């Protein structure tokens, strides 16, 4: 008897939906074992991460956080998913996020202390443009010189991080900050503050933008010829060429869009929850969004759900850190594990497990 894989003629529709759920369950089990190995009660730890933020004693405080943390993840992941579908691998969203935040903050700081309504729309525009421009660097280099967009977009993350540090310590430093690094706090500048639309709900403009992005991506992929071309070039690149799809144009579109969305996410973060440009402004949303995109099956609705789930692990992780002394790194590893198991379980979508009596063909 031998277990082997048999290719399915068509990907299984059932497993497309089941495999993310199965991956989450396996991650909980293995994660629980990990927490047990760290000397924590596994059931309590898992419950703290997944139950406490939603239904626990302080849920009224944590539920809005779900939107605050989920919005940037969803916004970035929607952009990434377009590229991932077309076989364009932008993994430098973290850098585009930083540059978007810097551009948005630059506009705000330039207008300070002028109090007019134009400041915030201009910041939104600057954030999107900044992220777009940072995303266009790997796109144009790929188009013109054939460079690998994976490596270039990733190198630009490190460049953006250095730029962030330079800005926080130099040009953008708060002149009234008594020498401390970091910019003025935009939360104290009403014209630039990305405040909650309903106080205490966590619903800021970034959440609205994420919602619009989900709907727009849904329409684009399902109803628009560009979305069709994106799907076609990912699933059958040769056929796409014959169908007249211009791969260069798609590269530019996918990297530009995902850059702009990541830039927007950064801008909404710096003007809202974070408040200021500081050295440790970026917390890895750009990388976690990669997990979100895959966990959501590169589908807009799936990404929205996956983004909320991932936000839950962030919040629950923080609670577990405070209450149970679970190290922050354990949560980071937990998130990485999720992507691992998802990719492993995904084999069942395209292949069938078969037991066979005959010896395996050599």
């Amino acid at each position, binding site marked *: 008897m031998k277990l082997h*894989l*048999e*290719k399915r003629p068509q990907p299984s529709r059932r497993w497309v939906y089941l495999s993310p759920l199965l991956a989450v369950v396996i991650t909980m089990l293995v994660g629980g074992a990990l927490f047990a190995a760290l000397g924590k009660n596994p059931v309590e730890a898992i419950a703290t991460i997944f139950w406490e933020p939603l239904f626990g004693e302080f849920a009224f405080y944590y539920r809005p956080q779900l939107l605050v943390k989920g919005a940037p993840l969803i916004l970035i992941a929607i952009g990434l998913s377009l590229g991932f579908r077309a076989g364009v*691998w932008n*993994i430098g969203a973290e850098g585009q996020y930083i540059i978007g935040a810097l551009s948005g903050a630059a506009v705000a700081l330039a207008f300070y202390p002028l109090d007019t309504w134009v400041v915030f729309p201009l910041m939104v525009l600057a954030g999107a443009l900044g992220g777009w421009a940072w995303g266009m660097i790997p796109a144009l*280099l790929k188009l013109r*010189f*054939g*460079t*690998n967009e*994976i*490596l*270039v977009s*990733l*190198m*630009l*993350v*490190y*460049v953006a991080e*250095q*730029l962030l*540090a*330079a800005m926080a*310590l*130099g040009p953008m430093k708060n002149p009234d900050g008594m020498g401390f690094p970091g910019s003025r706090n935009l939360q104290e500048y009403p014209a630039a503050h990305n405040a909650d639309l309903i106080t205490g709900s966590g619903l800021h403009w970034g959440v609205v933008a994420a919602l619009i992005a989900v709907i727009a991506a849904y329409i684009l992929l399902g109803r628009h010829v560009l979305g069709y071309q994106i799907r076609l070039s990912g699933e059958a690149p040769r056929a796409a060429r014959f169908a007249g799809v211009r791969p260069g144009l798609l590269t530019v579109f996918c990297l530009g869009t995902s850059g702009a969305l990541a830039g927007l996410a950064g801008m909404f973060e710096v003007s809202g929850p974070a408040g200021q440009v500081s050295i440790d402004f970026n917390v890895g949303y750009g*990388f976690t969004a*990669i*997990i979100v995109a*895959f966990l959501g099956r590169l589908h807009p609705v799936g990404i929205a759900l996956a983004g909320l789930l991932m936000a839950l692990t962030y919040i629950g992780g923080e609670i577990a850190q405070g209450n149970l002394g679970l*190290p*922050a*790194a*354990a*949560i*980071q*590893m*937990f*998130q*990485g*594990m999720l*992507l*691992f198991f998802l*990719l*492993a379980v*995904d*084999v069942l979508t*395209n*292949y069938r497990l078969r037991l066979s009596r005959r010896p395996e*063909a*050599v």
Partner: protein
Amino acid sequence: MDLSSINPILLLASIMAASTPILLAAIGELIVERSGVLNLGVEGMMITGAICGFAIAVSTGSPAIGFVGGALGGAGLSLLFAALTQVALANQVASGLALTLFGLGLSSLLGQGYVGIKPPPTPRLDIPVLGDIPVLGPILFSHDLMVYVALVLVAGVWAILKYSRAGLILRAVGENHDAAHALGYKVVRVRIMAIAFGGACAGLGGAYLSLVRVPQWTEGMTAGIGWIALALVVFASWKAGRVLLGAWLFGGVSVLQLNLQAAGVAIPVEYLSMSPYLITILVLVIMSADKSRAPASLGRIFHASQ
């Protein structure tokens, strides 16, 4: 600014040491890619090797055992990647990214309690006669053992790929896995071994960082070196000798910018720290015109049914 404070002999000598981690990681990835597998998890394997090597060296007191531990750590993590891509037939790009994200989390988890500790020192081999040669002595013959191990590894990889039957099989699997399979070679087995070798090399490079180069443990200490190693393989057109050249180039850039920082050049430190990454992009731009050298089966999934 005082550029005269930079001693050219010490500079060249430190390039040899600075290029070692990236050289180790890149030569491992070269073998992986020549077998037709694109493993983007180098960064994750390196940092796992860095903490495994560090922890084991600290607890045993022996840097040599630490290096072995680092290699095993990297290889162990790479086997996860092998399981995903070779057994579960997952997308290699996504799996590599997963490996890096996972490795970064794993390493910072393992590294708790090792922050701020000094590792046991790795002795320098002061080779008797050769080390006393005026200029060449300090540059070439006064390093620790790992520098030479890395160089021997490069030479070994070059020779195996060029002259041995094993190298021929590896290249066949990388160029056309269907043909190699038809000839009776075990494609999956060859690739798993290549992946494990790549992981061990990356782990060794990471351990060199935490035990010799820095030497201490800090979270995220690889700072993109694993990714630069990936770029280096493209730069080298998948050839062992040119990996060495590339590693010296990048080692040179990073040492030079550190020296400029120390000499107090009137450029903010942050802009100098960008230079290795910008140079990597520049080199990729220059080298990417010629794609013909890439192994033909690179990144493609192999399943015997097809």
